[in-house]
């Protein structure tokens, strides 16, 4: 089974800076990690390869420094990594990103594509299903377990609001995965050595069969018009006194807001 896992290098969300001129995020200078859900995608790819043979290719679109994320993927034991890097990809929204990734995945060839549920920088969760549409394969989101795999189909559980849905999809297909799916492994010794020296295949726009109108800023229908720091604050009051006094004051307030009913308890 030939598997392609899509990973995104994301800034650690606790450290954020914004370029006030362009209203876009400054990605330089913030520590970068592999999007946590994408580690689950890599892990599942490796588990499936161990059971059914085949290969795991990890692919990422981004600036040159994404190479470090791809080397980390190599240290986990994947067969091959591909970096999609080109100025022409800059400013891509999810539609342009998915179009670009889909072109490269078509080039690589696949039976199964694995994506994270969402990337923690944007939290959009759109790139996976959009890739599936560009490639005209079925997709299933929020996968928490892979139950059965045959030559032609895959049976999985999806984690939804009120429970788990069991679904079968014909292959080739695309899955987006949640944390519950597996426990990502740590880097292996030999793989880590290899990761240091292995070449990282890099593809630009030219080698891929892409319409320039569909990629980068031009291929991105959405525009960020404003970024701002959320405002907090409401006119609140501190309740005074001992715990008992504060409790009494709160209950009185909730009573007048008609959230607590009935009269005060005798004490």
């Amino acid at each position, binding site marked *: 089974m030939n598997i392609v896992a899509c990973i995104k290098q994301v800034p650690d969300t606790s450290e954020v800076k914004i370029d006030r001129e362009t209203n876009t995020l400054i990605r330089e200078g913030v520590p970068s990690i592999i999007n946590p859900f994408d580690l689950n995608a890599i892990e599942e790819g490796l588990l499936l390869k161990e059971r059914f043979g085949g290969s795991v290719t990890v692919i990422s679109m981004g600036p040159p420094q994404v190479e470090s994320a791809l080397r980390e993927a190599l240290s986990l034991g994947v067969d091959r990594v591909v970096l999609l890097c080109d100025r022409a990809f800059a400013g891509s929204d999810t539609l342009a990103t998915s179009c670009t990734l889909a072109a490269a995945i078509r080039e690589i060839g696949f039976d199964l594509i694995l994506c994270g549920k969402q990337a923690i920088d944007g*939290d959009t969760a759109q790139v996976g299903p959009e890739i599936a549409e560009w490639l005209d394969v079925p997709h299933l989101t929020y996968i928490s377990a892979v139950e059965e795999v045959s030559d032609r189909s895959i049976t999985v559980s999806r984690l939804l609001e009120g429970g*788990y849905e069991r679904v079968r999809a014909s292959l080739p297909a695309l899955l987006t995965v949640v944390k519950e799916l597996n426990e990502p492994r740590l880097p292996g010794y030999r793989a880590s050595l290899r990761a240091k020296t292995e070449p990282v295949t890099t593809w630009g726009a030219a080698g891929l069969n892409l319409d320039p109108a569909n990629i980068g800023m031009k291929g991105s229908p959405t525009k960020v018009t404003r970024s701002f720091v*959320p405002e907090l604050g*409401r006119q*609140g009051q501190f309740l005074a006194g001992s*715990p008992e006094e504060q409790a009494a004051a709160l209950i009185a307030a909730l009573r007048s807001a008609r959230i607590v009913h009935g009269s005060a308890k005798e004490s």
Partner: protein
Amino acid sequence: MKLYSDRCAGCEACVNACPYNAVTMQGGLPVFSDACNLCGACVEACPSEAIERPGNGGPAVEASPHRGIWIFGETKDGQPTRVVLELLAVGRRLAEKTGQDLGVVLAGDRLGTMPQNLIAFGADRVFLVEHPDLAVFRDEPYTAVLAAAIKQYRPSILLFGATTTGRSLAPRLAARLRTGLTADCTALDIDPESGNLLQTRPAFGGNIMATIMCPVNRPQMATMRPGVQKPATRDGGRTGEVIRLETGPSLLLARTEVLGFINRNEEMVNLEEASVIVSGGRGLGCAENFSLVRELAALLGGVVGASRAAVEEGWLPYAHQVGQTGKTVSPRLYIACGISGAVQHLAGMQGSDIIVAINRNPDAPIFKVASYGMVGDVVQILKSLIEQL
């Protein structure tokens, strides 16, 4: 300028708006003279959106414009989901602002009186597709059915709830329609200048908010986070139109098959619909102290929530987590017990009507959003509250 004469009401607003005196009325319709410099003042002034600026170097203006605000009518157990009612309230406001109709596109099987019900909750038109193959949601046939309806009726805006269904279907559909999609919005409005949809959403774990537009492509698509807006109220006297849409084998093709559903509702508390939530954080100190939170919640007729720290300690399952990566809630009363108020937690509960914060540190950020602050030991305060209720 381009005139859609079928929409023009002959009101002459454009004549009065034109700074160049380039518009005159002839036979009840405006005519644009050579003095027109395409400034667009008439476009803004026209109450019936009958005038458009000709293609100004950007992508070609479509022959017939997109109009109408549509909501995807997600259903569960034969009912519209709660977020559909929230979207109807938001959609109604957008419809009034832009003078457009509010439509719901509803797919499923044997939906009975649901179309009428959606009209009572604010829809002007319900686009209905019924077929046994649509009884259970699947991405492919739903994408095809919606894409066909959109090609035929050309809505300008299309909104989904940011549920697992909405967030699976909307991106596939957006890619098929080659249009933009904004995920998990917390506010939707209309830009007074361009008339475009302003889609505001948190990014970077709630640290910043971004407002996004889709200026050229149509429809403008967004998913909206459940629980942020108040649901529409029912008015049985409202009237509207139900339009049945055709379906066929090519639209119903699917390469996935749903085998079953394992209900975990008991474990997955319904925080979104609770009117009282008592939440606990790391400040409770241990799992045992959570029983006080449960007891207070029970006395107030509410349910129990938790911060991520409390979930990570293993004191409560993930289903109880409130915040950026948990649930977004907007109860009438939210009591935060031993929760510091990190921005990611606030992102999930700021919309609550009354917020009570219990924390021993008077500088804890949670107090910035609190209606009532209680400084002291959380265990003592909880015991006092339970005793006095």
